């Protein structure tokens, strides 16, 4: 592969997170019985007229703003004509001549190598119905028909399957962050057409392009590209010629196969959609939508490292989920110990959420309470095992950590007299171990500290206990 350069471009179709379909007011994302969220418009019945869902426009424009696209202040829709039972009106309403978003770029990082992947444009279109192919017939469910899609088309800027993967992951993360799509791959909310070509190293002209249609897992895309690029190189190496064609990935066999030309008529005969007026935006609307955008994941990561002095690993975990990042940040701003906040969020909080299959919104503990709990530990009012016990109460019931400490009697015993008493009892009950320590076995002390903790029912300050024991054993 070293003497060849690969160029990969993606056409990414993303279902937008709207409540209704793109051109009718019936529920989008219906996952129940087939054909229950349909109407004459999405069934493509003659005479039914589309009406634009403004929310879909807003979501697509916001995506463009996130990646630095130019937003078209006037945008129009076109009919893409094709004949297939997933689209019974025989055309898909899409945008060809004047899409909503032009240009833009997504930053990726593969193995510490940053790279900019340019985006050609993003356009708005409707999804097709879902077809299930059976032995002798095909069944069609129109619940998905007219679900709002945006199609994001990149330039052929990716040079490896890893870069394509990194691009998709970065895009998915942004879209989830901004609430534009859930990007649930299992539900087919992200689907890709993958274009690739290879050319000899040292040449500039792109090679002959092959398109792999309708990929719906990132892993599948990676595997398909790995296979396809090797196939193309092999054809060229053996003196063959590549033809521009559309191929299909056979996941089981692990190969790409040419599609029959009947399965993809490329002559779509686009023409302007007469039933939809143009979308005209003013700068104030676009700016208002820009103001709704969240801080992007990459920006947030850099800021967490800078502002909270956290290691990269912590930042990766904390920012993977926007709600978690918000929780961390709210707690960190009320705490003097940001690293401890990070440790508690990544450790106890994620563990507790994971055990019960909950989201951060379900946790009863507030960021303020977590910060207060950490302050109690740092002030040595409670020790770590007690803090974990308090955390569990706060997680399940909420409340104030100081009150929980009081109620459960968990405050550490730091009173010298009481600790001395526990130490004396521990030594008296374990003369043999005490003798070992006196004989130079330093680790024997840990056992005695454990005994003090046990006698105090976990409440003794372990550091003070160790000091008291040393004093009494040496004295």
């Amino acid at each position: 592969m070293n003497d060849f350069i690969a160029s990969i471009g993606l056409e990414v179709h993303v279902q937008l997170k709207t409540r209704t379909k793109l051109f009718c007011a019936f529920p989008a994302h219906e996952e129940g019985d087939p054909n229950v969220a349909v109407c004459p418009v999405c069934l493509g019945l003659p005479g039914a007229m589309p009406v634009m869902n403004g929310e879909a426009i807003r979501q697509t424009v916001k995506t463009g703003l996130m990646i630095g696209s130019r937003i078209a202040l006037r945008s129009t829709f076109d009919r893409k004509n094709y004949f297939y039972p997933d689209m019974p009106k025989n055309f898909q309403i899409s945008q060809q001549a004047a899409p909503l978003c032009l240009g833009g770029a997504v930053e990726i990082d593969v193995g510490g190598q940053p790279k900019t992947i340019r985006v050609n444009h993003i356009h708005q279109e409707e999804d097709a119905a879902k077809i299930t192919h059976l032995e002798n017939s095909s069944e069609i469910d129109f619940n998905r028909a007219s679900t709002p899609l945006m199609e994001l088309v990149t330039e052929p800027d990716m040079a490896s399957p890893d870069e394509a993967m990194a691009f998709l992951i970065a895009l998915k993360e942004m879209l989830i962050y901004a609430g534009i799509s859930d990007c649930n791959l299992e539900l087919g909310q992200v689907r890709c057409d993958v274009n690739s070509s290879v050319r000899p190293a040292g040449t500039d002209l792109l090679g002959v392009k092959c398109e792999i249609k309708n990929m719906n897992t990132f892993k599948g895309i990676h595997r398909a590209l790995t296979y396809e690029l090797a196939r193309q190189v092999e054809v060229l190496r053996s003196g063959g010629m590549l033809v521009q064609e559309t191929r299909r990935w056979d996941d089981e066999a692990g190969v790409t196969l040419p599609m029959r030309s009947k399965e993809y008529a490329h002559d779509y005969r686009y023409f302007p959609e007469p039933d939809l007026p143009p979308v005209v935006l003013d700068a104030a609307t676009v700016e208002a939508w820009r103001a709704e955008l969240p801080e992007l994941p990459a920006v947030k990561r850099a800021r967490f490292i800078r502002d909270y002095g956290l290691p990269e690993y912590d930042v990766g975990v904390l920012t993977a989920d926007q709600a978690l990042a918000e929780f961390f940040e709210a707690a960190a701003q009320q705490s003097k110990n940001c690293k401890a906040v990070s440790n508690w969020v990544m450790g106890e909080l994620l563990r507790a959420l994971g055990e019960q299959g909950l989201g951060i919104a379900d946790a009863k503990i507030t960021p303020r309470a977590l910060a207060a709990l950490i302050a109690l530990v740092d002030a040595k009012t409670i020790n770590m095992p007690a803090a974990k016990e308090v955390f569990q109460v706060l997680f399940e019931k909420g409340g104030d950590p100081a009150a929980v400490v009081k109620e459960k009697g968990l405050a550490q015993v730091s009173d010298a007299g009481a600790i001395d008493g526990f130490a004396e009892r521990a030594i008296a009950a374990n003369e043999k171990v005490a003798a070992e320590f006196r004989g130079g076995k330093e680790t024997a002390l840990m056992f005695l500290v454990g005994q003090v903790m046990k006698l105090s029912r976990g409440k003794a300050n372990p550091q003070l206990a160790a000091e008291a024991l040393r004093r009494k054993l040496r004295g």
Partner: protein
Amino acid sequence: MAMRFSENADRMDVRYVAGLARIALSDAEAARLQGQLDDILAFVGELKKLDVSGVEVTDVATEAQNAWRADVPIAGLEREATLANAPLARHGQFVVPKVIE
């Protein structure tokens, strides 16, 4: 497939268009329809004689803009009504002849 057509082509191959539309034509039908199609294109072609150099290109016929709908769902059709016009239905779905091999 045979000749493609574009917006600028003078002629449209009826067999090519029929192929896109999955319509089978006999030779006699193809010949008859080709003649009709040629006549239609010639008729529309009259427009080419007009001088439109001073006319702004337009893509819509009305002054309307946006005309958006709020993102608020309403209940769909009853499935029985949805499938009532289907030549064949099964498992709550429309059934069509198999479309891939």
